[in-house]
C-alpha cells in the first residue's frame, strides 16, 4: 500500500464509518501506526481546504469524521433533515455545563449551584443521551453521580473533555468596579 492509496482508504473508512472513527482503529485496519494515520488525516484535511471542496475533516470525540464546511449550513438546511439541529433550552444548557465541567456531580450539587430543582432537566438530558449515571457518591443516600457521554462530545463537536473551552477565572477582576 503506497501513501496515496493509504490516504484513499483512510478517506473511505472515515466516510463509511459515519460516526467518528478512532485513530487507533483506522491504524489497525490500515496496518499503520497512529502517527502515520494522523499525518494522512492532516493531508486529507489540507486537501479539503480547496475552495471547490464542500467537506472538511475534523477530530470529534476521539475520532475522525468528515463533515460539511460550516459556511454552507444555510444550503444544507434546505435538505430538510429531521435529525438536526440539536437544540437545548437555557436551563438544560446550564445544567449540562455544570455536569460537563464538574463531573462526576450529583443532582444535589447541581441544584445548589442553579438554585432550582433539576429533576426534569436531568431526565431530559439523560433521555437524549448527553449524560449518564457514572456511579454513586460515597455519601448518605448514595446519590447518583452524573457525567457526560460520548454523544455529548459529538453533539458539541469536542475532541474530548480536555477540549472543553477553558473557563476564565473572572471573579477576581470583578473586585474592580465595572463601568
Amino acid at each position, binding site marked *: 500500500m503506497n501513501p496515496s492509496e493509504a490516504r484513499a482508504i483512510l478517506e473511505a473508512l472515515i*466516510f*463509511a*464509518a*459515519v*460516526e467518528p472513527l478512532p485513530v487507533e482503529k483506522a491504524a489497525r485496519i490500515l496496518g499503520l501506526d497512529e502517527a502515520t494515520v494522523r499525518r494522512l488525516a492532516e493531508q486529507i484535511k489540507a486537501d479539503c481546504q480547496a475552495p471547490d471542496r464542500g467537506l*472538511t475533516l*475534523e477530530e470529534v470525540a476521539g475520532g475522525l*469524521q*468528515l*463533515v*460539511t*464546511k*460550516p*459556511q454552507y*449550513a444555510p444550503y*444544507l438546511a434546505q435538505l430538510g*433533515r429531521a*435529525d*438536526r*439541529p*440539536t437544540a*437545548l433550552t*437555557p*436551563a438544560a*444548557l*446550564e445544567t*449540562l*455545563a*455544570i455536569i*460537563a*465541567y464538574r463531573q462526576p456531580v450529583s443532582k444535589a450539587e447541581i441544584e*445548589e*449551584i*442553579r*438554585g*432550582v*430543582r433539576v429533576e426534569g432537566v436531568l431526565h431530559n438530558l439523560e433521555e437524549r443521551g448527553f449524560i449518564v449515571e457514572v456511579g454513586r457518591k460515597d455519601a448518605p443516600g448514595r446519590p447518583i453521580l452524573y457525567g457526560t457521554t460520548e454523544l455529548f462530545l459529538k*453533539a*458539541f*463537536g*469536542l475532541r474530548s473533555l480536555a477540549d*472543553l*473551552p477553558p*473557563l*476564565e*477565572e*473572572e*471573579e477576581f477582576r*470583578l*473586585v*474592580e*468596579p*465595572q*463601568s
Partner: protein
Amino acid sequence: MGYVVQLEVFTGPMDLLLHLVQKEQVSIYDIPIARITEEYLRYLETLHELDLDVISDFLVIAATLIQIKASLLVPQPPETGSAAPAAEEEGPDLRAQLVQRLLVYKKYRQAAEKLRTCLEARNARYTRWPGHRQLPPAPGEREEALPELPVDVWGLRDLVRQLLAQSQKPEPVHAVAPEKTSLRRRIREVLRSLKAKRELLFSELLPHPGPPRLEIVITFLAVLELLRAGLVAAYQATPLAQLRLAYLPRTAAKRGSGS
C-alpha cells in the same frame, strides 16, 4: 424604575439574582443588598401572578436575601463584653456565602454560554445521515460476523418470564415521607388561600378537622417559609391563641412578624 424584567428569560433564582446585580453594575462582592432584595421581591411578586409552580425555588433565595438585609440593619454589637449573639454574626456570613454561590453560578453560566457556542458551531456542520452506517460485509464473512450468544432463544424466553414474574410482585408499602415537594406544593396552596382571603386563621389552612399530624407540620413549615420571605404576617392575640395570618402584598421588604 421604568424597567421591566422579562419573565421567561431566567433559568432560576440565581440567574435572576445575577441579572439584578449585573444591572447595578457593581461588583458581586459589593451587592447593595437592600436594593437588590427589593427588586428581587418585586420580581417575585410578578411571578405570583403568573406561575405559582416556579415560586418555591425563588422563595428560598428571597428568604436568604431578607435575612441578610435584616441582619445588616442590626447595629454591630460592641466588641467588648458579652458574647455576640449568633444571629448577628449570621449576616456577614450569609452574605459571604451568597456571594460565593453567585460567583460559582456565574462561572457555570459562562460555561453554558461557551457550550452554546460549541453547539452552534457543530450544528453548522453536517455529518452524513446516521442511517447510512451500514457497512458492506466482506464476501463470505456474513456468517462469521454473527456475535456469540450466551443463550439460545429458549433461554431468552425464560429470562422474560422470570423478569415479568418478579416485576409483578406487589410493591412493598412505604411510609410517605414529608418530602420537599409537598412542602413546596403547600407553600403555593397557602399563598393561594391567603391571596384570596387576605387574612385567615392557621386552622383554616388545614383540610379538615383532625388532620394528620404530617399535614399540620407541613402547613406550619410552609407558613414559616412565607414568614421568612416576608410574604405573610402572623399575629397571636395571646401566647396560646390561634395563629392569625395576613397576606403582605409587595410590602415584603418590610420584615413581618417573625416571632
